[in-house]
């Protein structure tokens, strides 16, 4: 087995707050190969953004801290490290774009200058070279009149345009991995599609890997090769997009799918929310974090946290139902509880 491009293992992140210590990420493992797309899915507060931000060294410390785990880029540790063999990790090896492009760009610096900055810092470009390259990058992300636009400020751009500019900035140093943290959440639906197309095209052109963080299963289906479903600071299901969508093996994934609007006329009226709310991460439950909301929950679920059990080839689920000794194992999961069996 070759070394993956990025391998994250057993990552734990905590935050100290007024109310106590929040265990935001509680042991996350995943890996991604070059040129592939991994989607990390989950509802707000499940720890998906914290995971990648901790990896990139972007969480403020204190109050945050990484208590355990590691992240390796081509086998080399990047946690707490700023450069690998003279090449900067952040901005050069790994590019990143964020959810809200409006607030993620410096309001008092021109777009062109902001795109040019990594080139000047990491590549030693001159001011003029970097500016010219910034215009080319803007052109590449399909912003019309790029040279005029480069001189403008963020408040003169629309949300979609800003996200394009963010992408231009993130790919300016030709990173091997691009992390997109909810890149389309703040945008109109039509713009969302354009941004996703752009990302896909850029990925094809440059061969970079993409980690896509989202809560939108539609985006996942459209973009991802692999999917990691996160709940309460842990990955609860991991597998190829087909496995996770068509052979969902964790009740939470099933619940997520049911809560998603669909075009299927038969399912139009079946938009079902997941009852209850995620557990308090100040003091996570002893057993499975989803047990309290899970229609299938069993005695063991309340007593012990589930491990990741293999469901199929490269398909894992953190659910007691998938335990080798579980009587429910071969049966496919349905929305309902025990009554349906």
């Amino acid at each position, binding site marked *: 087995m070759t070394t993956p491009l990025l391998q994250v293992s057993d990552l734990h992140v905590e935050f100290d707050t007024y109310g106590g210590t929040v265990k935001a990420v509680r042991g996350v493992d995943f890996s991604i190969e070059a040129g592939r797309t991994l989607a990390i899915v989950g509802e707000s507060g499940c720890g998906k953004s914290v995971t990648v*931000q901790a990896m*990139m*060294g*972007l969480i*403020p410390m204190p109050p945050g801290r990484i208590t355990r785990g590691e992240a390796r880029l081509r086998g080399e540790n990047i946690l707490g490290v*700023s450069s690998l063999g003279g090449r*900067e*990790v*952040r*901005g*050069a090896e790994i*590019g*990143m774009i*964020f959810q*809200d492009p409006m*607030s*993620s*760009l*410096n*309001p*008092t*610096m*021109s777009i062109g200058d902001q795109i040019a*900055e*990594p080139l000047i*810092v*990491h590549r030693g470009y001159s001011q003029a070279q970097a500016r010219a390259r910034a215009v080319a990058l803007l052109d590449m992300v399909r912003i019309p009149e790029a040279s005029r636009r480069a001189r403008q*400020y963020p*408040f*003169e751009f629309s949300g979609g345009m800003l996200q394009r500019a*963010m992408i231009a*900035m*993130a790919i300016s140093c030709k990173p091997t991995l691009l992390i997109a943290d909810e890149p389309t959440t703040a945008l109109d639906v039509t713009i969302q599609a354009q941004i996703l197309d752009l990302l896909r095209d850029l990925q094809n052109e440059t061969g970079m890997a993409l980690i896509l963080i989202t809560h939108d299963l539609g985006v996942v289906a459209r973009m991802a090769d692999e999917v990691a479903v996160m709940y309460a600071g842990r990955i609860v299901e991991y597998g190829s997009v087909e496995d996770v969508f068509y052979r969902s093996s964790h009740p939470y994934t099933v619940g997520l799918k049911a809560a998603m609007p669909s075009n299927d006329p038969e399912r139009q009226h079946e938009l079902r929310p997941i009852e209850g709310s995620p557990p308090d991460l100040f003091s996570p439950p002893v057993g499975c974090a989803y047990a309290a909301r899970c229609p299938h929950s069993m005695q063991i679920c309340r007593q012990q946290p589930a491990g990741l059990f293999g469901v199929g080839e490269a398909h894992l689920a953190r659910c007691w139902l998938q335990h080798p000794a579980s009587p429910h194992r071969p049966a496919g999961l349905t929305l309902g509880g025990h009554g349906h069996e």
Partner: protein
Amino acid sequence: MWQYTLKRIFQGIITIWFIATATFVAMHSVPGDPLSSERATTPAIRANLEERYGLNKPILEQYVLYIGSFLKGDFGISFTQRNRQVNDIIREHFPVSATLGILAVTFAALGGVLFGALTALYRNRLPDTIIMFLVILGISVPSFVFAALGQLLLVNINNLLGFSLLPVAGWGTVGHMLIPALVLGMSTMAYVTRLMRSSMLEIIHSDYIRTAKAKGLPAARIFTRHELRNAILPVVTVLGPAIATITTGGFVVELVFAIPGLGRFFVQAVQQLDYTVIMGTTVFYGAFLVTMVILVDLLYGWIDPRVRVQ
């Protein structure tokens, strides 16, 4: 930007007119009249004085004359110091107050930005704790106490050294200006430090600083290019009002350090009920402050592209 500038200037002119009118109304609602004191001894002298100061005319005409002479830049003649033009008094003493004020504002702005940025960078560590303790003192201690303490300290230092390091009172050289300006700028500096600190802290946690970090920029570059420039913006907006506070706060410092500024004259004029000097100085100060606020606004527009471009 031009339109914005013109609009601000127009607003400023209206504001100055409002100040002049408010002053006029205030002074003409003084019970009794300006000549009721011992100065007008006989009806003849009284009539003469009324004629000279235009007090025998109807109030509306007086108002028109008053505004008219202000437009010509003429503030009239002093009531108590006969034959002395208010303009002369202003011309003589205002530069002193203005020098003191500008020096104090400079101290306050530079010191405040520097200390504020420091406290934000060293948040919850020793430099932050020390500076914020001093800031709380600076905000809580009245300026006259600073002035008195400053003078007391200076006296003691001079005694200790056996020669005069800096003059204790008076005006004329740079040495005369340093301590009064520092004392005068103290509370504003504390205020600016606090503002700068909270503004820096807000920006340090903002999304675009996270972006800058994700871009892998060195900390120094993030600080100068991204944090400082944005954090200074709110500081610039309070500089206008700060100039007003500092210039009028200068009265106390001028009293304590025996500085021949306009503030001391104003207090004197009020104590002697010298009406023309009171009105002239108030309107002049008002106009000065309005001008400074407009200049600061324009400066803000120049720094902040969101204002500049629109």
